[in-house]
């Protein structure tokens, strides 16, 4: 069984030879550069640093093929890029100056090498006119996806790994947070729903243009397409279920429909926090794979119930805790937790092992290896696969 067959079986709710592994390939399943450097050192890999999306300020590593093989990762990513002109401008800006993306939002360096999204160009906007007048990014810029067709075709020709397409943040709500600031936009959702909805739909329109080009470039060479929007907090939802259903669900439904009209790839939806009360809604609009299953957040810790209620329709990707287990656990504790999660989410397929969101700087490289080695050891369905050399 090839890694691709393994993934396809799992997302079609069949048991492959072992539970598939998804690491790297997107920020939400990625490894930050600092822990990745330590991992490279531990594995004796000598390779230059490369960043996902060619974006050092995001700080998430593009994992070298040698490491991907050692980690047993069953997918390979195809990503978009900011327009070449934007990458160029940022590469040549003064040191430590704010990073600004094509949307006009961006990140500020608060400590050397640590960037946070703090530049919100529509922070004070409250009117539809301001949305109409804003210099929105050019989603027709061909340099955003110029590499996509060839990269996807090469992976498809190899036919070894499942192809996971992860365009950067074509997420309406999170993009609205980036444009306005999270608290400001949340207040506008309640205070100025017409404005908030208009902003979301405007962003959605732009996301769809780029997503359309991205999917056209991929053609049939894609197995999983990632979108999302963070909807949960540590203990609850960012907004009431009623507000979600009134304002955002139609937007997500429209987006999923748009994507599914253009590809048969499985729809991967990333949403942090405790989103338990919205899982029925996400299934209803066509989400196939839910990520990251933040077990440290509220009812998402109840993996048995997740599997029992939605396991026949939803594939779970994630579930390996980055709050305590991966940063603070011993390799043995990591292995025990991976086995526990696999035992609950694995039966019948429908589970892809991944860390709950990005592996951060506090995770020792030994624990990253312990996570995947536990999958090799305990993740087999019928036969035990050989551990990669």
């Amino acid at each position: 069984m090839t890694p691709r067959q393994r993934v396809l079986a799992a997302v079609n709710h069949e048991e492959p030879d072992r539970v598939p592994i998804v690491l790297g390939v997107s920020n939400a399943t990625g490894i930050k550069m600092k822990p990745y450097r330590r991992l490279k050192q531990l594995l004796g890999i000598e390779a230059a640093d490369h960043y996902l999306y060619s974006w050092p300020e995001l700080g998430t590593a593009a994992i070298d093929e040698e490491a991907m093989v050692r980690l047993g990762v069953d997918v390979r990513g195809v990503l978009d890029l900011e327009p070449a002109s934007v990458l160029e401008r940022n590469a040549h800006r003064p040191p430590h100056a704010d990073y600004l993306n094509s949307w006009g939002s961006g990140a500020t360096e608060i400590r050397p090498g640590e960037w946070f999204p703090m530049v919100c160009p529509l922070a004070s906007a409250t009117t539809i006119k301001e949305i109409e007048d804003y210099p929105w990014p050019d989603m027709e810029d061909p340099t955003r996806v110029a590499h996509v067709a060839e990269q996807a075709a090469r992976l498809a020709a190899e036919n070894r790994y499942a192809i996971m397409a992860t365009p950067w943040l074509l997420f309406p709500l999170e993009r609205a947070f980036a444009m306005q600031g999270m608290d400001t936009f949340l207040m506008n959702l309640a205070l100025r729903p017409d404005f908030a909805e208009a902003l979301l739909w405007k962003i959605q329109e732009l996301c769809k243009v780029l997503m359309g080009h991205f999917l056209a470039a991929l053609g049939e060479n894609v197995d999983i397409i990632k979108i999302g929007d963070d909807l949960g907090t540590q203990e609850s939802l960012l907004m009431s279920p009623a507000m979600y259903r009134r304002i955002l669900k139609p937007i997500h439904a429209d987006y999923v429909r748009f994507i599914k009209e253009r590809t048969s790839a499985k729809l991967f939806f990333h949403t942090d926090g405790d989103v338990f009360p919205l899982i029925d809604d996400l299934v209803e609009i066509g989400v196939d794979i839910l990520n990251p299953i933040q077990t440290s957040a509220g009812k998402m810790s109840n993996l048995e119930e997740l599997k029992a209620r939605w396991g026949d329709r939803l594939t779970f990707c994630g579930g390996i805790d980055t709050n305590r287990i991966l940063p603070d656990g011993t390799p043995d504790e990591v292995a025990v937790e991976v086995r526990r999660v696999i035992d609950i989410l694995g039966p019948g397929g429908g589970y892809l092992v991944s860390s709950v969101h990005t592996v951060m700087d506090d995770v020792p490289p030994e624990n990253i290896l312990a996570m995947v080695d536990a999958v090799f050891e305990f993740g087999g369905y019928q036969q035990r696969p050989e551990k990669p050399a």
Partner: protein
Amino acid sequence: MTGRAEIIDLVYEHVLNGEAEQAVGEVERGLALGVEATALLFDAMIPALEEVGRLFETGEVFLPEMLLAARAMQEAMNVIRPSIVAAGVEPIGRFVMGTVAGDIHDVGKKLCIVMLEGAGFEVIDLGINVAGEKFVDAIREYRPDAVGMSAFLTTTVREFDRNVALIEEAGLRGTVKILIGGAPVNQHTVDRVGADGYAPDASSAVRVTKAVLSIG
């Protein structure tokens, strides 16, 4: 003419509903009509905020509504603060608060501050990305009853350990209670860091603080 009871009711409703402009309008009208600032605060604004907190904890309101209520409270507070000070109302405690170094998340911290101010605490906000040394300096300068540290990331939670050590080294640990908060924070964190408590959300921050400071 609008009566005092009606104004108190309206201020309560506007803060509860997060209508900042109307809350400020009613507070100004109340003051102009001779309603005491303390009555506006204790009979309308604080109960409204407590009710929002209760509704948040029971899952009846969510962040957007809570943020709006907090903003209405803050803006109304700005109007009555001089009168409250003039009335000689003493704060029930002093709090120094900040988001730790390497972290910029402050939505939760801002909500905590409003809830604490609403409960009668004086809060000095050190802002975001606050170095441990700044916390120490602020403890020396303001002599607070409690210091609150916020961190959203598992990586920046490590700053708590460093900051508690710095406060100890400065010989100030005995003078101040240390409270922590943020998404990855739980009782394990409190035990590891050697803090005095944590609150899972802004609404329970007041309860936790009062318990830690033994305020009735």
